[in-house]
């Protein structure tokens, strides 16, 4: 009774906060009894005490004396010392249990759950247990495997990834990207790496880190330096890989993963839908470098090409292949690169090999079910330029469009290469470490945005060094190939200059 009156006064306050202007009429009656008045007076006294002490003393006393839970841990730490004193006393149910029990009909058992204030249970060390975290991860893995089995691809086929590569500065960068994508693929995989200039140890050590089944072969000739020749040579290297598939009778889906492309994981799931030959949409990440400077005629020409050019199958409204979206290089021809060290951007060919996938059985020599539209690989030994896998087919209309008829773009084409004179630390390890340590607030280079870095080698003025700001579009990095090397080159010299200045100032 006493407790309930006090409780009710507290709850009345809570009422008003909870519902705003609502007033509960039925609660007024309980305040009138003398016991309630006495407890109100005591409550007022406790309020005065708390004003002096600075915290809510009355609730604390009641909570400690009449705590419901017998657990050892209470919420606030300072209570623990006081709790030890109070635990000697009897432990009563905080809420007015007798009153509750009176209202229950006789045949119901006493409720296990009591209304009122409960302690907040905290275990002694409330932090994650690494063993349990590992168990949970195994559970998650198993659930995801089950999901893949139920909703993913049924009877997944092997993948055969063909990557032409050659040793150069950015090889580690590109090949690691492709390698990590392949390591995430949940299907069985064979990776055929064809290297220009013969199979080298650098490439071999790189791909050995992947833990995948790899076939590393080399082609004797070195990579040519004209981009047009390069494209042709890469096609040759891919045909070399296809011959390996034919000779070893590898079974699966052949896909062409150029080492400078970006692949999304959905790509690998989508490819499983192919029957014989499939085509995907490839996003091409080239664009005119300065959009603002392009003339009006350029803009009009760009309107014909989509904003991000996409190469791939074109379908009509009933999702049947009717043609091809190709990349139109003409408006950008003046700005394109011809030579390996050129300033302009590298353009793709009309249809890249990367956008096609083949069933490896098409390449086998004596495959009984081979369709008649597939030409034999031997015919292409002497052919100079196999621009795209479509040339391997007699009839291009059998190609299956993948990725909801080319509407989904799951891979991106981009060629970024370092200049031949770029100096990168061998093995990408800076050894010995840089000596200059600059406090973070002051960087050796100022934040003035500069224009294009010029090709000349003058390093003197500090203004030339700066963060080259590009328009923030997704086609970002094609022109950075020389800027990165330049920046590093100049950063080192600038650091020495700054250190000199510092010593002078000091």
């Amino acid at each position: 009774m006493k407790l309930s009156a006090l409780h009710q006064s507290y709850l009345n306050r809570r009422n008003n906060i909870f519902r705003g202007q609502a007033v509960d009429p039925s609660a007024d009656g309980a305040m009138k009894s003398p016991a309630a008045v006495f407890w109100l007076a005591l409550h007022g006294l406790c309020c005065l005490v708390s004003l002096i002490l600075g915290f809510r003393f009355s609730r604390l006393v009641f909570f400690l004396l009449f705590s419901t839970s017998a657990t050892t841990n209470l919420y606030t730490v300072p209570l623990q010392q006081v709790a030890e004193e109070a635990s000697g006393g009897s432990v009563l149910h905080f809420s007015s249990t007798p009153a509750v029990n009176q209202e229950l009909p006789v045949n119901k058992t006493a409720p296990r759950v009591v209304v009122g204030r409960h302690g907040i249970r905290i275990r002694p060390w409330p932090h994650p247990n690494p063993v349990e975290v590992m168990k949970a991860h195994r559970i998650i893995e198993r659930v995801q495997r089950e999901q893949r089995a139920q909703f993913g691809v049924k009877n997944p086929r092997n993948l055969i990834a063909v990557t032409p590569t050659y040793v150069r500065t950015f090889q580690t960068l590109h090949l690691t990207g492709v390698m990590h994508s392949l390591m995430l693929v949940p299907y069985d995989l064979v990776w055929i790496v064809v290297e220009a200039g013969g199979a080298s140890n650098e490439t071999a050590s790189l791909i050995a880190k992947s833990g995948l089944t790899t076939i590393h072969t080399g082609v004797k000739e070195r990579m040519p330096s004209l981009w047009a020749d390069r494209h042709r040579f890469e096609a040759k290297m891919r045909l070399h890989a296809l011959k390996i598939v034919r000779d070893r009778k590898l079974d699966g889906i052949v896909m062409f993963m150029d080492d400078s492309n970006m692949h999304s994981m959905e790509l690998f799931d989508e490819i499983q839908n192919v029957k014989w030959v499939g085509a995907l949409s490839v996003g091409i990440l080239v664009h005119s470098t300065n959009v603002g400077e392009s003339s009006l005629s350029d803009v009009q020409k760009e309107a014909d090409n989509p904003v991000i050019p996409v190469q791939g199958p074109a379908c009509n409204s009933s999702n049947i292949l009717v043609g091809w979206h190709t990349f139109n290089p003409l408006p950008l021809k003046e700005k394109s690169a011809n030579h390996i060290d050129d300033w302009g951007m590298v353009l793709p060919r009309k249809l890249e090999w990367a956008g096609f996938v083949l069933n490896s059985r098409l390449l086998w020599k004596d495959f009984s079910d081979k369709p008649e539209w597939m030409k034999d690989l031997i015919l292409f030994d002497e052919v100079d330029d196999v621009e795209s896998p479509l040339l391997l087919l007699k009839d291009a209309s059998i190609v299956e469009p993948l990725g909801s008829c080319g509407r989904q773009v799951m891979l991106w084409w981009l060629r970024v290469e370092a200049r031949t004179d770029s100096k990168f630390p061998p093995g990408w390890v800076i050894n010995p470490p840089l000596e200059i340590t600059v406090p973070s607030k002051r960087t050796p280079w100022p934040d003035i945005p500069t224009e294009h870095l010029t090709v000349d080698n003058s390093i003197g003025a500090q203004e030339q060094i700066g963060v080259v700001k590009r328009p923030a579009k997704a086609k970002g990095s094609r022109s950075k190939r020389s800027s990165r090397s330049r920046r590093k080159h100049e950063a080192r010299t600038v650091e020495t200059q700054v250190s000199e200045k510092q010593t002078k100032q000091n």
Partner: protein
Amino acid sequence: MKMLTNIWTLILLGFLCSAFPSMEPMRTGALKLHRSQPTERISGSAGDVLDDDPVGRLKVFVYELPSKYNKKILQKDQRCLTHMFAAEIFMHRFLLSSAVRTLNPEEADWFYTPVYTTCDLTPNGLPLPFKSPRMMRSAIQLISSNWPYWNRSEGADHFFLVPHDFGACFHYQEEKAIERGILPLLQRATLVQTFGQRNHVCLKDGSITIPPYAPPQKMQAHLIHEKTPRSIFVYFRGLFYDVGNDPEGGYYARGARAAVWENFKDNPLFDISTEHPTTYYEDMQRAIFCLCPLGWAPWSPRLVEAVIFGCIPIIIADDIVLPFADAIPWEDIGVFVDEKDVPNLDTILTSIPVEVILRKQRLLANPSMKQAMLFPQPAQSGDAFHQVLNGLARKLPHGRSNVYLKPGQKILNWTAGPVGDLKPW
């Protein structure tokens, strides 16, 4: 010789017939809850009883009340159609056009009174229950004076929808609700409510628990592809401390939500926070477990959302009675954790065998499970409306209990209850 072969074939047939039910994967008869309290279950499970069709098994008569009890209230505040108590309005609309409705009260098994007691909303959208007892009382007085069917049984063949926090106790605070108890006039009626807790004053025997209303179209609009891998282990979004009403903690959720926060706020497996993300539904579909702890009342729409999105519900509410508990095997589908075991939640969850988890996910994927939790407009077969009717049909025939009173017998006390309730509405 012939007789012998006949006898053998009979025995064989008898053997086969008895073997068939035992091959069903689901159990029949009495089931033990994890708290060792046996519950009588109808034979079968999700997919069996949930598919029952109530049409033809019962007849419902809908009283024509003046529009001040229903339409006018709804017109004053349209939010009543979208909040979690909207089941009372949609049930009315469903029954008006349903095949179980009869216009002849003489042949009706059940009588429905459409009074919207949970539609008096504050500016914030929370329903005020202070006038609800008077409204209900006035409605009952109306039907008892205009039709003879109430007095015939004193309401034992009538059912009412009371989806508020504590059902027909008509209060949002638990102590107050317990003090008031169920409205005395509703003592004999069947209550269809969202609140359910064993051995609680506000849940009477024979009540039907329903899920709270969750908007079906909104949830359908946020469905993502099923092959999206489930990468979140435990997911929860909501309050841990109700700072406005219970700043120190300990009252809200009986301290259980606060315990979850204090124990697991730095645990990478628990994606819990008080934010309101726009991707809430999508996130639930990427989670394996979804916490459904109690709040001020033990029930919450989180259970419905978890079932729809295939996330195993972890129910932290002692003695809770879940919706359609007699038709849905909740212990097979969800995980029940006592409030006192909350600090060990991570141990409990990681020690569940993977096969059990996969089985729960399979049961949750059952479309009739998901359908039973929803109140779609227009009504579809197997949805929550039909489950309510199934529940009512299972209580028939009325002859079993003392439904119909002898002439002159009076059980209800029309003057019981707080003085404030007796004022006319």
